[in-house]
């Protein structure tokens, strides 16, 4: 077993935030004397990522995801705890380290607004000192995978949000980083574009064996890309493991879809009837009783078809956040 690519141990980040009452008097007072408050954003997080893993980093807004990503990419210094990425301590911001990682933030742009993306790429080439042949090869691969061909020569300001995001991602990967941090890479994009970016990320991971840690509010991203998820809430780790285990652990119910001839039958004695559409009932039953209820349904009624499902992942995640620690 090789060393993990990312190793975090008991990482803490406390923000010191100045606070003041509203109103002009308080504003003037704060010029002289500032009340500060300590806000723990990350409160003791540990995890390891192995080479080539694609891991979804989940949590509600303000859970500490972005703060953790910023520490991992060297932007923030932790208040306590230690960690390494590729063997480097990220917040020392060594050039060799920075050359091997990248950070993509869906809500912020690094491309220069008034010029074509290709020229911004050239700038990154100069900054990362990418040798010309490597640059050409990577550029043509990225152009292929992301279908950038017609976009590269237009000024960035003329691109749509999705087109711009594709260019942002390409710009961030030109130096072929081994570790990729993505903060909401698909935010605000339409479904087709989200899918395109997802496909691309998994292809990048496959081709270069890169380790990817991504946050997203779209569970479809996570389901499609990540076998493993890490869930944090209030700066603490709630869950770290396979996505399927998360579903197992946090769902108390299963969904049974039963097809009968019509919607006339009363199924209340079997479980909560969520809906019925042209004879197709959706029932919610406690997980432990699933087998029993299924048996009874099949024995009692003229069942045409029957399907047992886990609830949708969004619902599971919502439950995780509501419950807090398991």
């Amino acid at each position, binding site marked *: 077993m090789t060393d993990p690519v990312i190793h975090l141990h008991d990482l803490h980040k406390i923000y010191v935030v100045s606070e003041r009452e509203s109103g002009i008097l308080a504003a003037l007072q704060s010029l002289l004397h500032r009340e500060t408050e300590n806000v723990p954003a990350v409160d003791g997080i540990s995890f390891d990522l192995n080479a080539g893993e694609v891991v979804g980093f989940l949590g509600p807004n303000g859970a500490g995801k972005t703060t953790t990503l*910023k520490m991992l*990419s*060297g932007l923030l*210094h932790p208040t306590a705890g230690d960690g390494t990425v590729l063997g480097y301590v990220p917040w020392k911001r060594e050039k060799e*380290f920075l050359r091997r990682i990248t950070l993509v933030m869906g809500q912020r742009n690094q491309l220069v607004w*008034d*010029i074509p993306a290709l*020229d911004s790429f*050239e700038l990154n080439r100069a900054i990362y000192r990418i040798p010309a042949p490597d640059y050409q090869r990577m550029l043509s691969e990225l152009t292929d995978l992301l279908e950038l061909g017609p976009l590269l020569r237009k000024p960035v300001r003329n691109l749509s949000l999705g087109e711009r995001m594709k260019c942002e991602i390409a710009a961030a990967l030109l130096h072929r980083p081994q570790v990729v941090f993505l903060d909401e890479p698909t935010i605000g994009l339409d479904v087709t574009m989200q899918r395109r970016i997802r496909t691309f990320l998994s292809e990048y991971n496959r081709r270069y064996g890169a380790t990817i840690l991504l946050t997203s509010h779209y569970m479809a991203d996570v389901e499609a890309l990540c076998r493993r998820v890490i869930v944090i809430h209030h700066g603490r780790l709630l869950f770290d493991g396979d996505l399927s285990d998360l579903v197992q652990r946090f769902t108390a119910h299963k969904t049974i879809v039963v097809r009968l001839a019509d919607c006339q039958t009363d199924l209340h004695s079997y479980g909560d009837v969520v809906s019925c559409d042209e004879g197709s009932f959706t029932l919610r039953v406690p997980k432990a009783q699933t087998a029993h209820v299924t048996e009874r349904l099949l024995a009692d009624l003229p069942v045409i078809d029957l399907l047992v499902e886990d609830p949708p992942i969004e619902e599971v995640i919502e439950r995780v956040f509501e419950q807090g620690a398991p």
Partner: protein
Amino acid sequence: MNYLRLVWAFFRIGVMSEAAYRINFFIQLFQSLLELAMSLAGLAVIFSYTNSLGGWSPDEVLALVGVYFLIGGIIGLVIQPGMEQLIEDVREGTLDFTLTKPEDAQLLVSLRQVDIWRLVDIVMGFGVLAAALLRLGAHVGTSQAAAFGIMLLAGAVIIYSFWLILATLSFWFVRVENILEIFQSMYEAGRWPISLYPGWLRFALTFIVPVAFAVTVPTEALTGRLSGTTLLGAVALSVVLLAVSRLIWLRGLRQYSGASA
């Protein structure tokens, strides 16, 4: 070599970004010409009453105006745009992209914004300077030219360090644009020989806001008024300020990343 390539890359971006807004070239040209005309008219009026201003002859003051435009052009070309961008980036959080690059962040921050139209001021400054030297009939010897070059460089370094320190304050106090405004108005005072001002102001313009070193001192080098002491002093000040600004910058970065908290 790599740094030159980086400078070139940023300059190229500056040219390309601005090429989309060619009208700005004409606006800048008009603005610079207007400012120059006002300066010259002011000189003409003043020298219709006197032949010497704080011990400077009309043509020497003309040379000073040339240097004023030259340094002003350098500030406007790269120093001011970069520092204004830095302040904005700290506020918007876009500095993160700069900090994840495998290159010295101070270097990137200082070079990455170029307002190419301010080259107009630099060209104009050289023009005025050349005219003044012709009128002075002074033949500039190699040692004078060298002293001028060194003083120009030292002046630019001093002004750069000063701007960097001011802009770096944004790591602690988010809004610092106003301080930059103050600098800009103080710089205006540099278009006259520093010896013209009363003692306390002369002191302020030399040591607090080092405009004197940026404009008056290089001109003195060219017109042969400069003493060796001032030359050494200016060089020493530029080195010290550069080092101090670097230290403050590093402290600022620590503040930004929460390392000092």
